[in-house]
């Protein structure tokens, strides 16, 4: 299972970070072309693929592959 962020389209709103039940998503220090910091998963081993981050993402940039 893998969570993929389409980093180019992220606007850094932080809703995925707020609603992740395990609080394992964080904003990175790098910026995308639009000037927004984009998120990454801090502890991949803790992710169970619930896809709540994808459910709350207003820009539909999160894809959860496999399960």
């Amino acid at each position: 299972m893998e969570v993929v962020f389409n980093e180019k389209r992220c606007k850094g709103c932080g809703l995925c970070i707020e609603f992740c039940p395990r609080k394992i998503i964080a904003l990175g220090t790098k910026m995308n072309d639009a000037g927004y910091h984009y998120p990454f998963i801090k502890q991949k081993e803790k992710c169970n693929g619930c896809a709540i981050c994808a459910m709350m993402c207003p820009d539909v940039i999160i894809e959860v592959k496999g399960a």
Partner: protein
Amino acid sequence: MPKGYSRPQTLIDKPWHFCPGCNHGIIHRLCAEVIDEMGLQNQTIGVGSVGCGVFSYEYFNFDGIGPSHGRAPAVATGVKRVLPDRLVFTYQGDGDLAAIGTTEMVHSAVRGENITIIFVNNTLYGMTGGQMAPTTLMGQVTTTTPGGRSRNQAGYPFRVCEMLATMEGAAYIARGAVYNPAQVVKTKKAIKKAFATQMAGLGFSLVEVLSACPTNWGMNPIQALKFVEENMVPVFPLGEFKVTPIEAGV
């Protein structure tokens, strides 16, 4: 719990013009997911609106029409009467539907037109810079009510669902929100019921979705979602206001 998640096929793969944290994106996605699940992508016609939802025809992968300000239910009426086997829905904001388009909205419900309206309520005019709308909360500061909305000057907020639920032509009226994952799931079910109501030919359906506008409210996206939960929901209670049972299907 859903296993895996990928972008709905009914959404065109292009970046959106919405501000960071804008709930329009979630609501667009829910409409697309429901259309995917119901297998209606090839028989859907969307009718846009004027406001932040104006580019909905650019994002949905089906035919769309851009009507004049507020006239979407009238255009949808025409489309549905000519092509009764299609899913015809309008996607409108509160400035479009509850202000300039009130007549069209009310009378399409009075006539019981077999169309669906997705009504996004963010309490103000978003695209034009945050002016007061009929749905603005009492005391809420907007660019045209700098001292807060007052009763003497602007009256009270307009509750669309409660009004439409009294009409015989309305078959399904519900209000949802997207301020947390549980509400997103409930709102998706409401949109699915509304579309199923239309496909069963039962009459007019409307789903109002309470939406955050972080930019014009002057908040960050998380604060804006909390504002919806704490300030909007007491004024605009969530739930189903009118349900017509569908014999077969959903």
